[in-house]
């Protein structure tokens, strides 16, 4: 059924194919449009506001729905509702707003309603440094809501990736029926670079799995998963008469408050991503073929690290880089392969927080891990990373 609010859209206005000199935040907004964004609800917060402002301008011109909500809690609740009604949805925020969204992120995970949330990180905690960079939401994005659930988190390092990975986040959210995140940082969000937007037919679009029985069929159980652990999704108003709840529920969606039902449901929600981790995880390797010291860096920090690796090579240091493109699932297989290849002696983890990703690196290797941290407000420079590589 075609939603009444979404008239037929000229896909060429939706996808502005071609080369652009573009702000990271705007590239993210364009990525969402290209991915088929139908509904955006949000609340302004620095340094993510340009995403919202750009969509306020663009989304209504391609038949989409834009709503400025009263707060971040309402924003995330509204996108979950719209997604339950069949829309492709997104909201964007920064740390303080992201914290407010946590309860409903758990609801989306429990109801298996696909949503995309962009967090443009700034220096934290609390209001912190609103206009300056931070990378300290790495764990909040994974564990921020109460309980066990699974998420997929992309970390762009350039405006181009802001576009590409926002598209990827929409596809991952729909494919696995999970909350998917674009975890940016202020530097990347506020950086202007060349962004190549492919023609619409080259934008990968994965659609959520839909029931293959007609409405009213007694065979339809809204939370009965297929082999891939993902149940097909029926939308509001289609006649399937689904019930969705944040309570522990059985395959009918009915509350069933027993430890057995809970164990079955939660394990499946976590396994959807856990068992597919190697398929979902994305990363980049730079000069690791002969490296004996490997820097692990993401987002804007990976840009300093890239320079540091080049400088180190000039000094004869065999340095390389592993850049996680998905922070979660963390590319642990790639990390373990490096750690076990017999050449790598040490990892260096620079990050704009006091040691979140280094903890994850340490968890997967017995090799020494050198931490290089800044709590936020400034980038870590190539020279600082070079020093750590030379130690």
């Amino acid at each position, binding site marked *: 059924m075609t*939603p*009444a*609010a*979404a*008239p037929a859209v*000229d896909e060429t*206005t939706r996808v502005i194919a071609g080369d652009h000199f573009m702000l990271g935040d705007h590239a993210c907004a364009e990525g969402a449009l290209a991915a088929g964004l*139908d*509904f955006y*609800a949000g609340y302004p917060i620095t340094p993510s506001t340009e995403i919202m402002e750009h969509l306020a301008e663009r989304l*209504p*011109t391609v*038949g989409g*729905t*834009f*709503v400025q*909500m*009263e*707060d971040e*809690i*309402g*924003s995330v*609740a*509204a*996108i*979950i*509702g*719209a*997604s*339950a*009604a*069949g*829309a492709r*949805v997104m909201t964007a925020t920064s740390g303080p707003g992201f914290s407010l969204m946590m*309860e*409903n992120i758990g*609801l989306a995970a429990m*109801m298996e309603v696909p949503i995309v949330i962009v967090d443009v990180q700034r220096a934290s905690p609390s209001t912190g440094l609103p206009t300056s960079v931070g990378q300290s939401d790495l764990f909040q994005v994974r564990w921020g809501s109460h309980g066990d659930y699974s998420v997929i988190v992309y970390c762009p390092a350039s405006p181009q990736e802001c576009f590409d990975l926002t598209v990827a986040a929409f596809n991952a959210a729909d494919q696995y029926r999970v909350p998917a995140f674009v975890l940016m940082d202020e530097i990347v969000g506020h950086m202007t670079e060349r962004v190549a937007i492919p023609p619409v037919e080259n934008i990968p679009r994965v659609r959520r799995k839909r029931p293959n029985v007609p*409405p009213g069929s007694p065979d339809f159980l809204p939370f009965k998963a297929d082999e891939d652990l993902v149940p097909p999704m029926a939308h*509001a*108003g*289609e*006649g*399937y*008469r*689904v*019930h*969705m*709840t*944040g*309570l522990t529920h059985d395959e009918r969606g*009915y*509350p069933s408050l027993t430890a057995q039902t809970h164990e079955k449901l939660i394990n499946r929600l976590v396994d959807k991503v856990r068992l597919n981790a190697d398929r979902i995880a994305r990363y980049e390797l730079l000069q690791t073929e002969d490296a004996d010291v490997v820097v692990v860096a993401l987002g804007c920090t990976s840009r300093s690290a890239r320079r540091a690796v080049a400088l180190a090579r000039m000094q004869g240091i065999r340095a390389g880089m592993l850049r996680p493109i998905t922070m979660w699932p963390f590319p642990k297989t790639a990390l373990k392969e490096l750690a076990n290849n017999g050449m790598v002696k040490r990892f260096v983890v620079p990050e704009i927080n006091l040691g979140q990703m280094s903890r994850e690196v340490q968890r997967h290797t017995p090799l020494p891990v050198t931490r290089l941290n800044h709590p936020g407000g400034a980038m870590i420079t190539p020279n600082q990373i070079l020093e750590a590589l030379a130690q």
Partner: protein
Amino acid sequence: MSAGSIVVESHPADTLMRADRLPHILCPGCGIGSVVHTYVDAIAESGIPVNQHVCVSGIGCSGRAAGYVNIDSYHTTHGRAIPFALGIATYRPDLHVTVISGDGDLTAIGGNHFIHAARRSVALLVLCINNFNYGMTGGQAGPTTPLSAMSRTTPHGCWERPFNLPFLAQAIGASYVARWTVLHVRQLRTALLRAMNKQGFRFIEILSPCPTGFGRPNDIGDGLSEMQNYLRRCEVNNEIDLRAVDIDLTQQDSPIYVGDFVDVDRASFRPQVVHRAGA
């Protein structure tokens, strides 16, 4: 089974109730069941196809209502039923979305969403089942607990002034405002039918017994006694100035005003779609 007992295999409302979920979890004498029953009756009579009705609820005893109605139904988070429903109603304006909510859910934790959805004139029918306390967590005070009322968190009597919900709803822009009690099932059904066929943000407060959380500590007794209380005290007045419809528990014989208070035309919120020349 004794001779003469009435055995029915099904009830006319069965197709609109998730009969396989019954018996429900509500206490004897609770008014929430009556509201749900009246709601499904109104759905059946509304002339709107059943599959275009959607029910969204928050948390608490009233929040469980969505689980019993056999339409697309969403049991969401505490206080957030309205923004969740906004997402559905805004994306699918052809659907008729009803929020069933308790007083605490709607006007304490959800108060901000309530006022903003009404301000925007979002196409929602919002039912507030007001039993003057937090029932599910065991009878604590909320923003509608009347002055001097006893609860688990007001053991010396409530001294906060409660919300006057019809007045609030009128002030923030509801196109329809009514208050009935679960005693007034016919009037409530009529109000629901009227509201279902209107645009904008519609609000019905339904006073309802919670013998477990509110009736007992306030010496009201069981559900039936509270209904008798409504019978004795309720006064229908559709024209009343809504500033005067506070519920005062300290005055045992003061009237509780009920009625269809506000019925004005206000277009539903529709986010703009911009068609560019040449686009």
